[in-house]
């Protein structure tokens, strides 16, 4: 039973990290209708910048540098490639982000070499014990940080002018333009938020008990992709639910060492869960099915 609780907590922790990354996919998709395949390498970039900055300054400042730099990179990608091509085919733009992803990850691989970098988070390998359950501090921190960030995001999305503009623009871009909403600002901030979330997520993705940061983090980050899809690619709440579901499924299958296809089921469970859910609900759990009354 103790193991079960540990696995649940681990799963929630992993899931909340996936939720942050998945939310990045969803925000970008809602704002620009583009699926951003470069999210994984942006995440690695964020981690890399944080580790480099950490050589010169305390962790919190380094993280701030990493987050800002990643948000800025996302902004540059949006301005140069996405905004300039607005009105173009969104599928072509999605494939364009694959190109950016490959370029970015190739350069990062060159810089990493065979090194595994430590992100330098303050939690180290300390454990928290309570009620017979022990959990790495970093995992607990992941849950708390993700909760705060998600709450802040949802409050802004629901109540701020930015949120209203974002939702209006996502629903009907031309009508929003006719209301004088500056679409370009909305899409730019959406990309920046997605980049920033990825740069935060990478900290917890590579903190103890993970071995550290290398370019493999990109593949782990891409598991947030089925999370976003199964929640519904245009649903922010779906990103959170999808992230948690994937995190729990992965933690459970890894914890009980279930084997599948000659390997660990945990490696493929995100995609299996996605397939099963899409069979039942083709547009994801919270994905939009047209709601209208004439």
């Amino acid at each position, binding site marked *: 039973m103790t193991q079960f609780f540990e696995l649940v907590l681990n799963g929630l922790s992993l899931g909340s990290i996936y939720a942050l990354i998945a939310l990045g996919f969803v925000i970008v998709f809602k704002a620009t209708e583009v699926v951003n395949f470069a999210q994984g390498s942006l995440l690695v970039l964020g981690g890399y910048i944080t580790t480099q900055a950490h050589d010169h300054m305390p962790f919190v400042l380094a993280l701030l540098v990493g987050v800002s730099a990643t948000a800025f990179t996302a902004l540059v990608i949006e301005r140069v490639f996405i905004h300039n091509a607005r009105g173009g085919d969104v599928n072509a733009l999605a494939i364009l982000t694959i190109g950016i992803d490959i370029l970015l990850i190739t350069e990062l691989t060159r810089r990493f070499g065979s090194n595994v970098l430590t992100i330098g988070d303050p939690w180290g390998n300390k454990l928290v014990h309570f009620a017979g359950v022990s959990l790495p501090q970093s995992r607990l921190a992941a849950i708390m940080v993700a909760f705060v960030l998600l709450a802040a995001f949802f409050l802004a999305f629901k109540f701020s002018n930015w949120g*209203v503009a974002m*939702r*209006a623009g996502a629903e009907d871009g*031309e009508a*929003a333009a*006719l*209301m004088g909403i500056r679409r370009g600002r909305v899409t730019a901030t959406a990309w920046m938020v997605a980049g920033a979330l990825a740069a935060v997520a990478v900290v917890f993705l590579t903190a103890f008990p993970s071995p550290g940061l290398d370019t493999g983090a990109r593949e782990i980050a891409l598991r947030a992709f089925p999370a976003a899809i199964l929640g519904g690619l245009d649903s922010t709440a779906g990103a959170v639910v999808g992230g948690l579901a994937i995190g729990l499924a992965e933690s459970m299958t890894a914890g009980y060492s279930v084997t599948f296809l000659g390997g660990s089921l945990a490696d493929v469970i995100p995609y299996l869960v996605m397939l099963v859910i899409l069979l039942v609900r083709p547009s994801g759990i919270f994905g939009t099915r047209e709601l209208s009354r*004439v």
Partner: protein
Amino acid sequence: MLEVTQLHVSYGGVVRALQGVSLQVPDEKVVAVLGSNGAGKSTLLRTVSATLRLHRGAVVGGGITYHGQSLAGLDAARTVRLGIVQVPEGRRIFGRLTVEENLRAGGLGAADKSARAASKDRVFDLFPLLAERRRQRAALLSGGEQQMLAIGRALMAAPKLIILDEPSLGLAPKIVGQIGRILQAINADGTAVLLVEQNAVMALGIADTAYVLDVGRVSLSGSAKELAASDDVRQLYLGHAATSASGAPAEPAREPSRTRSTLSRWQG
């Protein structure tokens, strides 16, 4: 206040949608533009509100000035901040947002942010029903209510010129009459109205001047009263078929017939 001069617009460099259209909207007046499908009405409005580019259209000649200032090269947001706000065809309300959020979205483009509260009071004054349903998702409103919301949303930006693209589209005659009265009330507050319609009865009923657009050109213009009395408009838009074979003038009817008005045109 708004002056369109010899406007030529084409799509993709091929299709000429407007070929030398000129018209004026004077301060605090109601101007109607009539025309059937494909006459260029929507193109005209897209040009005014700077959304032509979203449809791959471009101005190839002439221009539009607002209080003497050229609108060429302005984006949609700038146009709204100048006080020109459009209610799009088919309402295009944000269905997943609540009524109140729709109004808030409309106020985001306002030049004077401090006037938003006053704008909202005015909208709820004009449309008490929107105040009642403020927390409801807009998609759940009826067609007529959605049109009210679309007009209310545009008013949130405190326009000096409000442009409506076929507000009567798909609505019951009773609701159309209501919308006509609301537009008169909006105009009475000093807002100029540019109304593009296929429903000539309502449009000519409230307009001061009117233009008839036909395949990209202005074919008729004049005061709304004159146009309502002209044979061409009666035949084409008011549904009084003249004895077509002989071409003899139609009997002057006492009042425009509402029941027969534009029904045959919907099949389009």
